[in-house]
């Protein structure tokens, strides 16, 4: 295909019309929502799916022998199948439905660490979100494991040479993000997996930022576990997934006990249900899971081809505009093809909190703070930064609004 017309084009203004919340104003201004890495807004079809579930289908799952419960179970299991297809998981049994990325990583950290011996090593990185650090810290403390961290380069990329140096026969787990929520760096997961598997380590990928922005193929990534959240990809809050290799999940002990996860219970012992159910104790988040396929349908309709083209264009444009302002330090790789759709920055004179407050009065919602990555912030030598993160409904106009508001903040503080 040589013609560019075959690439589907995303028109952000048209997409935005499908999001009721984007029609509201904030402090009398059009809402410019640029905190998508924290959570995205939800399109109308997702809201309708939620409403539909509660008005037509609501019942508990895997329990009652009646129509409603069967329908609810089917809707819940439909989510699992759709997610399995979405990331090309080998088997829907390898998809555990949980609350979020954090819970998924905790599950692996807790359960897998029980298979490890004191002195075994976990290799993670300096650019992880706390949710891919703290669960390993906890496991390490409990089991006497050793945590090591791959540093980042000046450009904000993972130091692959250091990764190779730190990887050894003692490394049992490599836990790494697919894309940094602060730097935007996209990590070459398949390369890491190849090396990690050579020493017999498993690889856990925090896909919270990666999965919403590109087509992810579980087999091609090659990792053993992949965690991500529905709410960062236009789906409801309260649903997240652990996608794992079924044979590994089978070998793992459950972490939570209760209903649903058992096969037989006696007063003095119990046997576990099959995967994935043995990791899904108690009533799951049925409604939100049932609504999530609507978000996937929305993404499918837009196509990742168009989404990536749009988001790369927007990120490149934002980089150029922000860099052009002067007086801002932008974090992370410059090359738009090596980064995801977000930019973190620090103004030379205005504290991130002050900047975010002024931006808010212009209707521009950005994140200011440490972005749940304190070790990375220390490495960058800042305590906080402002992060603008983009989604399918953001346009160049939104970037212009951001830039305009930054200039207004400088004027306000008497710096321009």
């Amino acid at each position, binding site marked *: 295909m040589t013609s560019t017309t075959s690439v589907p084009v995303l028109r952000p203004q048209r997409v935005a019309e499908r999001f009721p919340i984007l029609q509201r104003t904030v402090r009398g201004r059009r809402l410019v929502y640029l905190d998508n890495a924290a959570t995205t807004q939800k399109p109308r079809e997702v809201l309708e799916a939620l409403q539909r579930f509660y008005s037509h289908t609501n019942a508990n799952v895997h329990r009652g022998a009646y129509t409603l419960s069967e329908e609810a179970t089917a809707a819940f299991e439909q989510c699992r199948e759709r997610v399995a297809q979405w990331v090309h998981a080998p088997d829907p049994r390898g998809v555990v439905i949980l609350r979020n990325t954090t819970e998924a990583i905790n599950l692996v950290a807790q359960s897998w660490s029980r298979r490890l011996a004191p002195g075994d090593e976990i290799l993670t990185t300096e650019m992880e979100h706390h949710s891919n650090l703290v669960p390993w810290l906890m496991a390490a403390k409990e089991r006497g494991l050793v945590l090591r961290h791959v540093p980042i380069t000046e450009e904000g990329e993972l130091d692959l040479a250091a990764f190779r140096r730190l990887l050894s026969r003692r490394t049992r787990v490599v836990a790494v993000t697919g894309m940094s929520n602060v730097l935007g760096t996209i990590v070459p997961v398949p390369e890491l997996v190849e090396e990690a598997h050579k020493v017999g380590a498993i690889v856990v990928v925090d896909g919270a930022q990666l999965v919403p922005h590109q087509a992810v193929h579980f087999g091609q990534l090659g990792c053993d576990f992949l965690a991500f959240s529905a709410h960062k990809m236009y789906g409801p809050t309260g649903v997240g997934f652990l996608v794992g290799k079924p044979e590994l999940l089978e070998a793992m002990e459950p972490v939570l006990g209760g209903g649903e996860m058992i096969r037989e219970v006696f007063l003095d012992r119990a046997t576990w249900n099959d995967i994935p159910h043995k990791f899904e104790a108690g009533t799951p988040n049925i409604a939100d899971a049932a609504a999530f396929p609507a978000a996937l349908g929305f993404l499918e309709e837009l196509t990742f081809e168009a989404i990536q083209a749009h988001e790369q264009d927007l990120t490149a444009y934002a980089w150029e505009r922000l860099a052009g302002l002067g007086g801002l330090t932008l974090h992370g790789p410059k090359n738009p093809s090596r980064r995801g759709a977000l930019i973190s920055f620090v103004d030379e004179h205005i504290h991130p909190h002050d900047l975010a*407050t002024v931006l808010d009065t212009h209707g521009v919602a950005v994140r200011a*703070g440490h972005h749940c990555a304190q070790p990375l912030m220390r490495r960058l030598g800042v*305590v906080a930064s402002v992060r603008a993160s983009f989604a399918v409904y953001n346009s160049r106009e939104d970037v212009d609004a951001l830039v305009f508001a930054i200039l207004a903040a400088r004027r306000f503080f008497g710096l321009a």
Partner: protein
Amino acid sequence: MGSPPEVPLDELYREVVLDHYRHPRGREPLARVDVTAQGFNPLCGDQVEVALQVGEELIQQAQVLSRGCAICTASASMMAEALPGQTLAQAEQGAEAFRQVMHGKPFPQELPLGDLEALEGVKHFPVRVKCALLPWMTLKEAIAALRRGERRAKATTE
């Protein structure tokens, strides 16, 4: 649910606040340090260091160093200006009164709080309340340490 009232930006950053932010007072080192406390807001990384010179329950001099946003810096500067000449009990009372102001109570005109009234608008911006309170929380820890016969203390907002 309705939206919170739309409070204009200059209600948060009044001229007096901006002046303290641009020219913070009370940064000079003390002749004698009787107690120091470090305050930290892990959410935004704001840091405050309070040092007091105390004699007979009276704060003779205060040094307040801050590294943070405009609100935190201004609050620290105003505190540094207001403290000398207050008893430890008055300072504690002021800290508590200011905390209550941030949670909606009227400003206590009877207390010697200097320019602090200019920060009253912060209460309309809930995420910024901790920025304004950090210096005062740190002060409270310093005084508590002094009462325990210690010379150092730490405070965090979380």
